[in-house]
């Protein structure tokens, strides 16, 4: 039987506020355990939550960016369950009336096709603390620094049909939250993570299969691997006559498999009800309008502009707008070079991206900045060096931090554009290779490349390729 995969994601994005969603504690990552947990975060008797306005503004920014409805009236509810990292015995979240509802995002897949993913809702809630298990036999240690950090939970429709689509969607959300400056997107620190709801069904069926929820995936790679593992597991189970159980599963990156979570085995009854300590969140048109006016250019808008203004392909535009910083870097290079934006794009996406990747650096920490890269591209454009030589120059720039011009001078890499010098080199090569010359003249056109290579070798690669081609063609034909 042919199976179809159905995936929905619940993405948790920590909002980049200074203080927590319901208390004045700091949200900075990496502090000593429990030093950023105040009375409210610890759930002390008698304390009460007060809502951080910035968290609300950030949620509204997100809602506007996905074309969603901003609820004029939303309600905080308590989700009741006992867990050591949940100090009050309930999580303050939004249940029936979330602040953001009914948006969508367009995702460009690898094959260039576009896919719209529905976003059912995005709601505000508080993060839980952390349980640490190392170095304490039989015990767990609870750190509540993270408890109360604001989150938006972004719940997609079950619109994705493969792990690759799920990753593409998650990357798109990741891009968006960073554009909006509402989340730092740091997945290692858990600022951006997701739960994946995965099910399979016979292809053509319009009913959903039983789903498993894979919890707490904190890298794109894990999302892809966990979903693929889970899909295979479910198909194998169904094909051998078994049944998928609705359950919560955990992905083990070391083993590359998902397993049932024992702690969540007990059927949950969260007993949601409106939190009586908080009043309804009322958002009026003026509040929304102010936020709308402050939104930056969004990734899709920017990509469309890159296609329009710079003549880039949709794919290239998509790559260059994956982060605000990358887009800004690219535009800086284009502005400085003043022409050939396509060549600029190739350099940013090609050599620069490869070197960043190799050294595990972000664009803002690049060893070759926009000004330096523009200097290099300018020398290609004005024919001072060839594109091939430029690759060597770039490598030297990356290593030394020097400008393209300095390296070209030091290493004497300036192109030979003097017709006489090139002709002389051609004459010498022709004299050294009479056999090949005869063959060429008797019709073996392919040998043209051989002569180009020999002349380049003789000139140390510095001959201007266009001039060389012209002159060589003339001389060879006698």
């Amino acid at each position, binding site marked *: 039987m042919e199976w179809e995969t159905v995936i929905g994601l619940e993405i948790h994005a920590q909002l980049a*506020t*200074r*203080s927590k969603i319901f*208390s*004045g*504690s*700091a949200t900075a990552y990496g502090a*000593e*355990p*429990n*030093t*950023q*947990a*105040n*009375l409210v975060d*610890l759930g*002390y008797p008698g304390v009460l939550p*007060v*809502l*951080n*306005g*910035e*968290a*609300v503004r950030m949620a509204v920014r997100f809602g506007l960016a996905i074309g969603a409805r901003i609820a004029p009236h939303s*309600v*905080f509810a308590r989700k009741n369950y*006992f*867990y*050591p*990292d949940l100090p009050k015995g309930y999580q303050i979240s939004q249940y029936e009336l979330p602040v953001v509802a009914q948006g969508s995002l367009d995702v460009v897949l690898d094959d260039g096709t576009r896919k719209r993913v529905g976003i059912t809702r995005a709601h505000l809630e508080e993060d839980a603390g952390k*349980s*640490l*298990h190392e170095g*304490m036999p*039989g*015990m*767990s*240690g*609870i*750190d*509540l620094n993270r408890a109360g950090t604001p989150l938006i939970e972004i719940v997609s429709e079950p619109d994705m049909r493969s792990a690759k689509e799920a990753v593409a969607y998650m990357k798109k959300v990741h891009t968006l939250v960073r554009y909006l400056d509402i989340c730092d997107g740091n997945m290692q620190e858990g600022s951006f993570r997701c739960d994946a709801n995965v099910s399979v069904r016979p292809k053509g069926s319009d009913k959903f299969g039983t789903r498993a929820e894979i919890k707490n995936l904190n890298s794109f790679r894990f999302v892809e691997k966990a979903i693929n593992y889970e899909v295979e597991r479910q198909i194998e189970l169904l094909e051998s006559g078994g049944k998928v159980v609705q359950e919560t599963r*955990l992905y083990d990156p070391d083993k590359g498999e998902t397993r049932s*979570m*024992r*702690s969540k085995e007990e059927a949950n*009854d969260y*007993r949601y*009800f*409106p939190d*009586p300590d*908080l*009043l*309804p*969140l*009322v958002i009026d048109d003026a509040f929304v309008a102010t936020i709308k006016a402050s939104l930056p250019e969004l990734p899709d808008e920017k990509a469309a502009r890159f296609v329009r203004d710079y003549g880039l392909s949709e794919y290239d535009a998509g790559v260059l707008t994956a982060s605000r910083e990358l887009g800004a870097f690219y535009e800086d290079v284009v502005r400085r070079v003043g022409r050939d934006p396509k060549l600029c794009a190739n350099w940013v996406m090609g050599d620069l991206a490869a070197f960043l990747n190799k050294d595990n650096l972000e664009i803002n920490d690049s060893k070759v900045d926009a000004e330096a890269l523009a200097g290099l591209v300018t020398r290609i454009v004005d024919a001072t060096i060839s594109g091939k030589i430029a690759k060597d120059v770039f490598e030297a720039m990356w290593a030394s931090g020097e400008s393209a011009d300095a390296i070209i001078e030091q290493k004497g890499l300036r192109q030979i554009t003097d017709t006489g010098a090139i002709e002389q080199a051609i004459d010498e090569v022709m004299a050294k290779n009479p056999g090949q010359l005869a063959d060429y003249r008797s019709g073996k056109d392919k040998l043209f490349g051989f002569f180009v290579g020999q002349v380049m070798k003789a000139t140390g690669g510095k001959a201007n390729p266009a001039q060389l081609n012209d002159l060589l063609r003339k001389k060879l034909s006698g």
Partner: protein
Amino acid sequence: MSLTRADIENIARLARLELTEAEIPVYVDSLSKIFAFVGELDRAPTAGIDPMAHPMPGLAQRLRADEVTETNRRDTFQQNAPKVEAGLYLVPKVIE
């Protein structure tokens, strides 16, 4: 309405309350009485009436400025904690 022993055991588990053998029949009896009593609500004409979650109608949630106002008081707070080590609250191992 009448609750059973199993009902009470389920509720107690959900509420994380250990009950003694002697307590169970007492709660079976008293909760049954309470639910019979609150069953009176059934006769109230509530069609079309909105639920009232808050006693002061029309008030909206106030928004706090995003400011860090707290300093570290861990040592004071942990004086009330039954079991602490290296700044962490200790519990029997959490199994995931």
